[in-house]
């Protein structure tokens, strides 16, 4: 009995035990395939859509998915309240979500990394000022600030990217700065200083490359967060303007028909779920793989 109890406490941790989930964490097959499918669908979007995602056809309104009673095999996932094909709308929504997600993640990652490097490396007043700015962004309610910006700037894809980057960089800056602080103390950085390297060279050649692993993990997890944030803004009516087929907007519109046509809400939500799930799984996998310090699994 006692032996059995000691077992779990031994440092076996992840990956050794069998089962489906450990396997999925060991190989990012599941998340990799899902993300690859979404990226391909996002790139090929307009070629793949069976119908025009924006053109309405009132006579075909609220057709259920084809496996349900009254379904039409022409519209596999059914149609919405204006007779637009759900599958086509979800496919073209993929491109919007991915573009906004990727660009916002790259932009906020860029700003966050630059802030972290300057702040962590130079220290002193630069550090103090930049960290207070970071704290400010972190302490303000994320979605509310994004909503205010969206209302002030007006809804458009470019503005949405800008807004999500403005509220998203602080997380990177916080984590990467502490990383920079510890790397700065390493012997190879001191040696580089003694050898006469300039600050720019040290930052570029010796410090930045050592933060890349963390940066990749953060960016992967952030992609999911940004996609949900964008969907939430669109759901609240301050994200992507209609008639563009944003997933959040589709859920908001479908909500009015929830009793008669639940598929209007169901499918766009599932699309969001799968892509964010894949990001989170991949992020977790990378975290374990790239940085053994993170053990919060």
């Amino acid at each position: 009995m006692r032996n059995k109890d000691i077992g779990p406490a031994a440092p076996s941790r992840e990956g050794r035990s069998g089962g489906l989930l450990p396997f999925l964490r060991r190989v990012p097959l599941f998340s990799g395939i899902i993300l690859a499918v979404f990226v391909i669908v996002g790139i090929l979007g307009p070629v793949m859509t069976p119908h025009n995602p924006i053109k309405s056809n009132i006579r075909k309104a609220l057709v259920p998915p084809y496996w349900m009673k009254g379904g039409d095999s022409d519209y596999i996932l059914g149609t919405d309240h204006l007779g637009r094909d759900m599958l086509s709308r979800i496919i073209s929504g993929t491109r919007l979500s991915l573009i906004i997600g990727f660009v916002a993640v790259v932009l906020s990652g860029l700003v966050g990394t630059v802030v972290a490097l300057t702040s962590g490396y130079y220290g002193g007043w630069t550090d103090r000022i930049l960290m207070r700015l970071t704290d400010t962004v972190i302490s303000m309610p994320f979605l509310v600030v994004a909503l205010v910006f969206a209302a002030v700037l007006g809804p458009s894809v470019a503005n949405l990217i800008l807004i999500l980057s403005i509220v998203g960089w602080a997380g990177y800056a916080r984590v990467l700065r502490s990383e920079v602080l510890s790397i700065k103390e390493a012997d190879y950085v001191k040696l580089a200083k003694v050898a006469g390297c300039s600050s720019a060279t040290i930052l570029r050649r010796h410090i930045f490359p050592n933060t890349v692993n963390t940066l990749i993990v953060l960016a992967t997890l952030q992609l999911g967060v940004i996609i949900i944030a964008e969907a939430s803004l669109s759901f609240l009516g301050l994200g992507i303007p209609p008639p563009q087929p944003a997933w959040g907007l589709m859920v908001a519109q479908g909500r009015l028909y929830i009793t008669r046509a639940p598929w209007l809400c169901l499918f766009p939500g599932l699309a969001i779920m799968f892509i964010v799930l894949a990001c989170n799984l991949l992020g977790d996998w990378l975290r374990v793989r790239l940085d053994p310090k993170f053990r919060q699994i």
Partner: protein
Amino acid sequence: MQQYIAKRIVESIVTVLIVSVVVFLFVRMSGDPRLLLLPPEASDEDWDAMGKLLGLEKPILLQYWNFLSGAIRGDMGRSIYWHEPALSVFASRFPNSLQLAVSSFGFSICIGLVVGILSAVKLGTWFDHFGKIFALLGQSLPTFWVGIMLVFMFSVRLDWLPTSGMGGPQHLVLPAFTLGWYFIAAQARLTRSSMLDVLDAEYIKLARIKGVPESLVILKHALKNALLPVFTMSALNFVTLLGGAVVTEVVFAWPGVGRLVVDSIFARDYPVVQVCVLIFSVLFVATNLMVDILYAYIDPRIRYQ
């Protein structure tokens, strides 16, 4: 230690000041407030008089100073829509948000702790996997969609719970779970990893070798030490729950601050938006500060420069 606390207090004050600048600039960015306050046919004299009343002709720094000193005195301007002081509009909604946040917090702490502890103790079993999937879903599902789907399942189809609004405890179940799922997940994951770290420690092995019953080892020796990071995180989570309920409150037509913010943004009622953002940011900063100070007292292992 005193030096560390003093440093953290100064930092927090500076952060709050920057927040106040940003909140002040919100209104500047959105254009001349007179456009909202005055009818289009207002005369030039009215326009100038209103500008004087609002102090718009003064230099911007002086305007900010007036805003800040007003905020400290509790005067945050009047709501354009409600024709009441913005602060009292906020205060009338705040208890509702608090009620939702407290129940949601209760949900997430109870379920999160239990799932986290059991997952750590029963590492690698089906329960652990179930806990992980539950946590993963909680962190991957968009709140608004969870809310709508729960309403569809439990209100429309099964007719067990009301769809929206405030009322008895049955009105709280769906919104509290919707809001809390993400935090249940966060709580469960942190509890699990924290428990795993502690269960590895020498004193746990010693307790087991001494023959302490397993349940006592887990609940007394391990859990007590594993809870510290869990509680620090949950303090911040609570504030996030309070300020982050926007989507949930909209989906369930909950008359809290989150919905007030959205309505005010749509109505361009910026004084109310200012109050909400400022108060939630201050709450967050203050909680963070208290957690850091508590940590410094509770955990002597932490050394500060």
